């Protein structure tokens, strides 16, 4: 089978498994499992946003959580002021995208190198975290919505059917929405990356100077990629605000940003399915580690194993040092070399007979 065949097979497989998962889970699983899975799906959309801009665009953004948090906060604030979710949902996509575009303009048109880009995005995240964190007083409000500072905004109204305020979404509906969004995002990005635009941004990632000499403006393409990533992250943030009916500044925090990076690096840069797998795997691991948290906490080892940042840190270091490509590309390489070896062995097994 050639590469194209594998590609189609992979797409069909993802589609079938995704749809089956979406349809069957609420029928088979308990409601609290469905609730947990919903947040995994939402975070996977977020992972895909970074998979696009880092894995394919080559833009290392340490502040993807800034757009995520901005989306969540925008939705919450707009919801309290408008009360009908069609416009807030759109705003939660448009505002982070606009913010990404503004930030991207400064960075790409300033021709800042990759490394500085990482530092700047990190800084912006911290600015947002610090400023939102300090808005606890009642004097900080936007319209009817109080920002709440480090307490966050509780009781965010859920999404409703477009222009129909009475029909709000329930927990199961939220699962369908999140999983559907993940599938749509995945296939949408596959489509985008197969288009001319996608080819060009990958070309820019591979060799920016060459792409520029061929007549493409890397700054504009990077800016567009970054903006799309920001919009996606904002959308994920809006879903997240819906999932818990709550946002707090920790979603801007460094821990959140680090998680997104870890999902992508564990799953593999330059793939879309990798970050989704990485995201779900790491979140499952974090939940499992958090679950056996000892209440007394006297033993140092049990404290260490219940400590998610510590384990995540070790995972990140280990992957950078040992599996820098990530799991999915590594497995793909492994599979390919096995296949090649078998083919070679088959060819060799043929030769001696001819010689004799």
């Amino acid at each position, binding site marked *: 089978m050639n590469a194209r065949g594998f590609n189609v097979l992979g797409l069909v497989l993802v589609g079938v498994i995704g749809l089956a998962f979406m349809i069957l889970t609420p029928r088979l699983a308990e409601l609290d499992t469905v609730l947990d899975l919903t947040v995994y799906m939402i975070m996977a959309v977020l992972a895909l946003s970074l998979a696009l801009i880092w894995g394919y665009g080559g833009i290392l953004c340490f502040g993807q959580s800034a757009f995520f948090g901005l989306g969540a906060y925008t939705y919450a604030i707009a919801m309290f002021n408008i009360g009908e979710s069609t416009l807030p949902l759109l705003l939660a996509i448009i505002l982070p995208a606009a913010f990404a575009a503004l930030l991207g303009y400064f960075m790409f048109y300033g021709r800042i190198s*990759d490394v500085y880009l*990482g530092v*700047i995005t990190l800084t912006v995240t*911290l600015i947002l975290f610090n400023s939102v964190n300090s808005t606890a007083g009642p004097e900080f409000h936007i319209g009817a919505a109080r920002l709440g500072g480090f307490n966050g905004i509780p009781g965010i109204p859920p999404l409703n059917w477009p222009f129909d305020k009475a029909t709000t979404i329930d927990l199961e509906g939220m699962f369908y929405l999140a999983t559907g969004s993940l599938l749509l995002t995945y296939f949408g990005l596959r489509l985008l990356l197969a288009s001319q635009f996608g080819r060009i941004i990958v070309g820019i990632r591979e060799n920016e100077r060459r792409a520029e000499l061929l007549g493409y403006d890397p700054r504009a393409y990077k800016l567009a990629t970054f903006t799309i990533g920001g919009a996606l992250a904002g959308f994920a943030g809006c879903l997240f605000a819906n999932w818990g009916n709550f946002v707090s500044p920790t979603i801007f925090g460094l821990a959140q940003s680090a998680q997104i990076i870890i999902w992508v690096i564990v799953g593999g840069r330059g793939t879309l399915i990798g970050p989704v797998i990485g995201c779900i795997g790491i979140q499952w691991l974090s939940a499992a580690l958090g679950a056996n948290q000892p209440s007394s906490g006297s033993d140092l080892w049990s404290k260490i194993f219940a*400590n998610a940042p*510590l384990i995540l*840190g070790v995972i990140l*270091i280990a992957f950078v040092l040992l599996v820098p490509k990530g799991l999915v590309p590594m497995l793909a390489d492994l599979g390919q070399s096995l296949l090649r070896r078998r083919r070679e062995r088959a060819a060799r097994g043929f030769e001696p007979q001819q010689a004799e």
Partner: protein
Amino acid sequence: MDLIALLAIQVLYAVASLALISVGLAIIFGMMRVINLAHGEFLMLGGYAAIVATSHGISIWIAMLVVAPIVVGLIGIVVERAIIRFLYGRMIDTMLATWGLSLFLVGLTTAIFGNTTVGISAPLGSIQIGAYRTSAYTLFVIAIAAIVLGGIFAVMRWTRLGLIARGTMQNANMAAALGVNPPRVYAITFGVGAALSGLAGAVLAPVSGVFPTIGVAYVAKSFITVIGGGAAILSGTVSASVLFGTINQIATFVTTPVFGEVALLAAAIVLIRLLPQGITGRFFRRGL
């Protein structure tokens, strides 16, 4: 008049603390082109080292000025040998690995010391400036910053070690051809940078207290200072500290401390857009 004197001290203090927290990072970044995202955690470890030493009956001055730099410097050398040396020339990967290290250190200190703020009271009392009182410790921090910067200048300019370090920084292959062992220079440099971070963390510990995630409060500011400063270690750190410290303190004075920090970071982003090579990319090029 008194108010102006007080404000001047505050501005000077902001500049000094920025320079202190950034200089260790600047050495590591300027000499080795390594972006150490665990820098904030080195500062945090310095603070903890000082506090643990003080609680074991060591004088606070020795704990801050001797124990903390030595402990964190040794940790730095271990980190360089265990992680960083495999990643030279891969800037992004170093960034990611040191970020992992930062998470790891936060997790480890949380497991050991708990997620609470530990403080040591600032030694030295307060001094009177006209109608106002200010902590004498502020002046101590300013003095320490001046001594550290002066010391780095002296070492870099007048000693053989400084000469080797500058040579390796300019052209590692040439230095190796002349008999210098670059890996050893890198290990020492990383250790010195970490030691200075430990010193800064310890000196600032009485002001801010120490808790496992305090690194986050430092890391953005110090990165912005180093990047805003540009390639030259000393003149870059000093010029960027002066610029950002002044902006920060004046904005704090006019509004709130949080807005002061936001103003600092926003100013830095604009500066990097205008001078992508940092201040020393355009001015004071011949500085150290």
